[in-house]
């Protein structure tokens, strides 16, 4: 189910002194099975944009078309859309509301009228996927967890619905490095196994560079650039000037190049840097 965003504009509190234009004429197409990274400075409109993709926010003007259907038309079943397009919010504490972790994660699947056994199976599976121990955590209150634990529970709640499109709004904020890697690895696996579409909003240039196929860059309510990670991260000055950056490892390669070393600079991960440096060192040894 491709997602097409057409001339989307969103204005918060129009006609008041607090009026703010959060999105301006955004056009974007996400094809089935694609893995997108959405980056942009704080306040650039990322959260506003993705909340349109499952009908949580209504456009001031423009359209959101999912599977050929304009989701803001009268008669469209938004509940169905929200089961297909799963959204992990930026603030997990806002998404948690049940008295136990178990009930919280079960809420989505239960609402889908699945048999109770299936609900239980999914809850266990989802909690394990996000690296939490089902038996240890299921009866605890989601509000008496550390920040990182809360975030994991919120992600599990969305995974348990097995959405076809998974949208994650800064899912790794507050997670420790292992949690960050684990959850991202699970998302990659989920996508490969179930061929789902993924949109990842993140401030971690390192994670974005490593994971996604395509990047959309937002600046002041517009998508100002899109392309593959290699294309996007070539433009170092441009990214810095709009609040972003390139991965540390890419910085390193650029600095080596500036020192006159003959190294590739389109390196986006430690793996690639390792291979490139070994290649150059060995080449030199041979010469």
């Amino acid at each position, binding site marked *: 189910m491709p997602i097409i965003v057409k001339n989307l504009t969103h204005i918060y509190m129009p006609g008041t002194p*607090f009026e703010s234009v959060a999105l301006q004429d955004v056009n974007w197409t996400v094809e089935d099975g694609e893995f997108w990274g959405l980056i*942009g*400075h*704080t*306040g650039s409109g990322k959260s506003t944009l993705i909340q349109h993709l499952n009908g949580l926010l209504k456009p001031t003007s423009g359209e959101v078309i999912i599977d050929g259907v304009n989701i803001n038309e009268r008669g469209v079943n938004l509940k169905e859309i929200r089961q297909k397009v799963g959204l992990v919010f930026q*603030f997990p504490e806002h998404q948690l509301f049940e008295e136990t972790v178990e009930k919280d994660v079960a809420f989505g699947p239960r609402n889908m009228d699945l048999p109770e056994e299936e609900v239980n199976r999914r809850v266990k599976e989802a909690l394990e996927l996000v690296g939490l121990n089902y038996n240890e955590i299921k009866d605890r209150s989601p509000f*008496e*967890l*550390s*920040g*990182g*634990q809360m975030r*994991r529970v919120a992600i599990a709640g969305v995974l348990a619905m097995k959405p076809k499109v998974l949208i994650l709004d*800064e899912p790794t*904020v*507050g*997670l*420790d*490095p*292992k*949690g*960050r890697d684990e959850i991202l690895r699970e998302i990659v696996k989920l996508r490969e196994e179930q061929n789902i579409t993924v949109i990842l909003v993140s*401030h971690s*240039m*390192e994670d974005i560079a490593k994971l996604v196929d395509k990047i959309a860059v937002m600046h002041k309510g517009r998508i100002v650039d899109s392309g593959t990670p290699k294309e996007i991260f070539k433009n170092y000055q441009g990214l*810095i000037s709009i*609040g*972003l*950056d390139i*991965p*540390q*490892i890419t*910085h*390193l390669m650029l*600095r*080596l190049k500036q*020192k006159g*070393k*003959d*190294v590739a600079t389109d390196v986006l991960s*430690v793996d690639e*840097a*390792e291979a490139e*440096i*070994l290649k*150059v*060192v060995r080449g*030199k040894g041979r010469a």
Partner: protein
Amino acid sequence: MAAEIVAEGVCYQYPQAADMALKDINLRIRKGEFVAIIGPNGSGKSTLAKLFNGLFVPTKGKVTVDGLDTRDRNNIWKIRQKAGMVFQNPDNQIVATMVEEDVAFGPENLGVPPEEIRKRVYEALEIVELTEFAQKPPHLLSGGQKQRVAIAGVIAMRPDYIILDEPTAMLDPVGRKEVINTVKRLNKEEGKTIVLITHFMEEAVQADRVIVMDKGRVVMMGTPREIFSQVEELKAIGLDVPQVTELAHRLRRWGLKVRGDILTIDEMVECLCPLL
């Protein structure tokens, strides 16, 4: 009276919790230091931070701030004034409709006279380099700027210790740098003692000393170089090292002559140039 925060045999258990969140913590934060605390989710970092400024009192053991025991309720205002906190979400910390009012909020609550408040507010805004935003509504600011407003609010209370619990978690890369640079300036130029809790190893590298927590205990303590050269040990407890440190570690395994305690891009460039 010693100018430091001291934790001695500190245990903390949340009401109704099955386990201790902190177990036998012994450490001191010296005046003028910049200390980073890292550790996996649930390891007790935020709990420890709240013990440092008397928001929580130890279940066992004691915490003193400049010799003042946090268990003594008579000390609590003095302690809160000495140790200010900054949290993760800038939007939850901003209360007023204008930046300068927001910064004034803390000292007003302390009963500081209005003239003195004005002076402190402008000093604080100058330190975080936001003077020109004094009369702007905070919602027009970027995430990094809002977080600096929150820091200014703490500075205006004139604390000696500033404890920041993941202050950059929600910021874009440039906002993150702004906040870390502000924190470093507070330490180097204003002489503030800094305790920075973070999940970003590139930030912890910039501290004088790193404390590593795991499962409610302090498991490592040392300079960033001492800590981050222990790549395997850190990974085993769910932590990481900066990308350049990781790269150095891997190249050494291939037999390349690279130092094992690289922390920054500059150091790595210096090490690699002769080899390339």
